[in-house]
């Protein structure tokens, strides 16, 4: 359990009418930005292309949609534009640059097999490293991008409804049932926060 989820479940868990229009405008902008062919607000186009290629390796389309289908590159762009601190922005930018050098030539010039091999190798290095310590920059990039891809994907509509399962209005609570009888038996979508 992450902190927020934890606080929410253990502790329970201005301006309503006035702020509503501006609040809802933010939601509309969010919906619009998820359309394909979005205009990046934080990264350059070549950086977005690289991030897109990497998230497609992390969560590809299979019998269900993948991270790119779910608008994850745009999600990552928005997170860096609005949510992360300057230090986090710099860390990611530097890691991205380092990652782009790690394969001998620019990542997008590698073929599909080489790209996958590089991402897999750096991911392995990142998770083999010491807990609580950031891995070397190129591996750090892969791990950070994995977290971002998972967060963007598993909170997206395809992620919540086609890979996981989501009930907007469950209507009832069944505390203890066989897994096979819990909806379609897959994990329920839940709101989660990951730190970079």
């Amino acid at each position, binding site marked *: 359990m992450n902190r927020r989820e934890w606080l929410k479940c253990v502790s329970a868990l201005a301006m309503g009418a006035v702020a509503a229009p501006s609040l809802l405008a933010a939601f509309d902008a969010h919906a619009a930005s998820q359309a394909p062919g979005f205009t990046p607000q934080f990264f350059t186009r070549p950086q977005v292309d690289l991030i897109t290629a990497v998230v497609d390796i992390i969560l590809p389309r299979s019998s269900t949609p993948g991270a790119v289908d779910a608008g994850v590159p745009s999600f990552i762009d928005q997170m860096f534009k609005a949510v*992360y601190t300057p230090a986090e922005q710099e860390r990611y930018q530097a890691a991205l640059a380092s990652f782009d050098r790690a394969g001998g030539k620019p990542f997008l010039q590698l073929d599909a097999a080489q790209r996958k091999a590089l991402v897999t190798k750096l991911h392995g290095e990142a998770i083999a490293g010491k807990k609580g310590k950031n891995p070397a920059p190129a591996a750090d990039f892969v791990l950070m991008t994995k977290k971002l891809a998972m967060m963007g994907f598993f909170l997206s509509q395809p992620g919540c409804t086609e890979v996981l399962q989501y009930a907007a209005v469950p209507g009832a609570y069944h505390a203890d049932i066989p897994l096979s009888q819990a909806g379609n038996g897959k994990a329920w979508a839940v709101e989660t926060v990951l730190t970079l």
Partner: protein
Amino acid sequence: MDKNTYDAIVVGTGVSGGWAAKELTEKGLKTLVLDRGPMVKHGDYPTAMKAPWELPYADQPTQEDIRRWPKHTRPSFYGITQSTKHWFVDDLDNPYEETKPFDWFRGYHVGGRSLMWGRQSYRLSDLDLEANGKEGVGVDWPIRYADLAPWYDYVEHFIGVSGSVEHLAQLPDGDFLPPMELNCVEKEFAGRLSDKFSRKLIIGRTANLSGPLKHDKSPQRATCQYRNLCMRGCPFGAYFSSNSSTLPSAERTGNMTIVPNSIVYEMIYDNAKGKATGVRVLDAETGKQTEYFAKVIFLCASTFGTTHILLNSTSSRFPNGFGNDSGELGHNVMDHLFGIGVSASVEGHEDRYYSGRRPNGFYIPRYRNVGSDKRSYLRGFGYQGSASRQNWSRLVDEPLLGDDLKRAAEEPGPWRLGMSGFGEMLPSHSNYVTLDHNHKDKYGLPVLNFNVAHGDNENRMKKDILDDAMEMMTAAGYRDVRSYITPANVGAAIHEMGTARMGRDPKTSVLNGWNQMHACNNVFITDGSFMASSACQNPSLTYMAMTARAAKYAVDELKRGNI
């Protein structure tokens, strides 16, 4: 003057103000209800039906949000999200000073924090109400459980509290709707605690409608749909808020006049009559000043809201703040110990799951300093927690990518159980708030300055909260038992109380046993300010019961011509 004159004025529309409005209007008083924030009608909850993918930024606060809410985004709080931030006051516009750090989390709008509260609802018992007197701490409560019990019945019946009957002297049962269920791991843990420690673990008691209300006075309220998005406001009216429950009843009487955006900044006192005659109000949008008058005034602006108004109301009669003959106004600030907890991994039960999102957890009622148990500190604590199956975030550090990662995420993860303590804090004169005349808010009003810290008793109890939780989870056979200490200041439990305590002696307390001001008998305070001790139970149910009780008394006294 006539047009601004009512029988009663209620200041605040949160948990306590909503109840005051309902009770006074139902008893026939023409009542003016004031709140400093904007109107929120039941149903006016802009984010209530948003799916996860409709929320920008994975529902996290942006840098701009953190700039606007530097205090509300402290690690001890989780309310500044894209789906709930509109219910919390902007820290830049609503500043306060901290001689000692204090977490003050609040919302200014009609409904107050009844909209965002966690709905956990527990009764106090005589163990709590007798403790001050027996131990010589603070002042003795002027009431006992027998005074409160019928009023707990009354408010529980009206708002609907779901819970189980347990026959515990330290946590009296109530007039409950059906209890929600524990899941398989919670049940197993309950069994092990009972076997190894003879301690109880029960389902939380929560003001969510697990079944229909037992009355027909709130047609706008439907049963819970198990979405667990309550903090956004519930379009089904399935949890108690002023907006969904008490204010609609007050409205239906035809006796309520509600004026939002009304910042009450001062009491009006009539020296000749020896009474409060009304309040002075600043319009939050236009700055216009208005005076309102009434025979009786209920202050329900939340503990610090009310304290602010009283400290800001000085006169020749009350040079140190309205009703402050005792010198206790603003003192004895209490909250609950918060943020200390433990979680553990639970093996097995892989073939069991749940469906629906239960807006509730389990509760381990207080067992320390109960019966023959004796500790090196006074009072005790309870735990609140839950067990659930881990989600996809467990896979970040697993060597999985691509299709393998997707497939693994489809499966519910292993079980994890977590709980944290809510501990009692003792009243102390040295924990207080003052008005800081060197710092003014945008309306030119002095801000509150906090001078509150935990003492020796609290620090000793904190250690037990952590050690006991570790011991219970380890004894239950769980693995990877990890403690968790959230950086939290006093206030983080959002159960602030005590600044205008009740007591028998006007020399040492602000209110009498009817929430009536010793020094001015037509002023009643029924928000958390009145609390003479904090107990360790979530307090709002007690504020409701005491509000209803005080309203009955006030109306009777009006009829008798005593006020």
